[in-house]
């Protein structure tokens, strides 16, 4: 286990005991990637703030929802943020069509990118690996993963969007996930 993951575990344990300082440490470690993810999925500042706010509040209220035997805290928490962001955007999408906003992973114009963002080197390195892994995918496979994960689209909706059969979306998704798994979890 990486040292940073050990630290997360310790902070999570302390949050379970009601330690506010530990909670704020976790906030400082994950508020930025969480907000970036929520912003990418929802495309709306206010909605992204609500997602991040509610996700951290959920962590404080029910820290036992994280089971350390099932993977790193980071994966659990950012998955929680992702679930909430997708739920939020699907609610919103029932009311109005959204503009195209999932074409790439870079911040959109107008996003508040703080110059002074300081992030743990481990996360920086992991981000680089994840992006590299995504870039190794054929563009059609990468597109279905991005539309699903960052766009909150269902496979049926992706098929509509791209004008291809749902079966093709499924095939591309599976191929992409297999490749990503191999790339991100190759034997160390």
């Amino acid at each position, binding site marked *: 286990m990486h040292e940073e993951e050990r630290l997360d575990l310790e902070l999570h344990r302390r949050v379970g005991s009601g330690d*506010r300082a530990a909670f*704020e440490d976790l*906030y400082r470690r994950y*508020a*930025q*990637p969480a*907000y*970036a*993810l929520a912003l990418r999925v929802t495309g709306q500042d206010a909605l*992204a*703030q*609500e997602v*991040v*706010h*509610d996700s951290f*509040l*959920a962590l404080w*209220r*029910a820290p036992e929802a994280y089971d350390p035997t099932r*993977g790193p805290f*980071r*994966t659990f928490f*950012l*998955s929680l943020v*992702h*679930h*909430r962001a997708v*739920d939020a955007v699907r*609610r*919103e999408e029932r*009311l109005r069509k959204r503009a195209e906003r999932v074409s790439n*992973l*870079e911040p959109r114009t107008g996003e*508040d*990118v*703080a110059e002074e*963002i300081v992030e743990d080197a481990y*996360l920086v390195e*992991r*981000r680089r690996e*994840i992006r590299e892994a*995504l870039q190794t995918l054929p563009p059609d496979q990468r597109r279905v993963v991005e539309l*699903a*994960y*960052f766009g909150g*689209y*269902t*496979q*049926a*909706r992706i098929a509509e969007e791209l004008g291809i059969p749902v079966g093709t979306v*499924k*095939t591309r*998704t*599976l191929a*992409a*996930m297999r490749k*990503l*798994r191999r790339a*991100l*979890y190759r034997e160390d």
Partner: protein
Amino acid sequence: MNGEHDRIEELLAGYVLLALSGEDAIEADRLLSEHVPSCPMCRDTLAGFGAVAGELALAPTPVAPPDLLLPRLRRELDRVSGRRRRATIAAVAAGVIALVTLSGLSMSLASRASKAEHTKVQLYDVVGTLQQPGASSVSLESMDRSSPGMVEVSGPGFERMYIVGRDVPEPAPGHAYQLWLGSGGTFVPVGDMFLPDDGLVYIRLTFDPSPYDEILITEEAIGSRATSPSRGGHVWHASLTAAA
């Protein structure tokens, strides 16, 4: 069997990306409860794909959240930490729990994991607010008595209010619901228009509703940007001055 596992793997890939719907979601639901727990190969696939999905979250360039977010969370934590159950709101809290449980029965399974988590957090939010000293709830009655009522939850100084309801009917085609707050007979639209999700309504607004004395929920044409509430279709109303 390999063909069957390929099919399961395909479903699990969509499942971890929250991308399943319809029959696929139901099938994934069945597999996750009946097959995957006892199949080492599928368990490994689910764990591996789940880990990939978790890591994808790191891909976007980090963005600092607004500075006000942490102080807001601190205030919320103060309230949560100092909560006390009020006997007078216990019945309403139980009603909210029943609402969430019932709505869960009709969910398709693959979306249930995320929905259940989301609903659980919504439940924590509403019940946590109800447990705070000074919390109150008000019933929004259907004006024509044709639909179940909804409940508004807030409290003095809470700077947030909730509207929850179940079995809320879909509005007419091309329409959605709009929440209005009124003061002295003048109403202003609040928040985005909304639709019930499988009959369930959960609205959370972060502001202090105390300056207002009435709540309306009306049916408005999507995109109409109505400046005053229409009275056609479903309408719910509550007087906040009667709040306990």
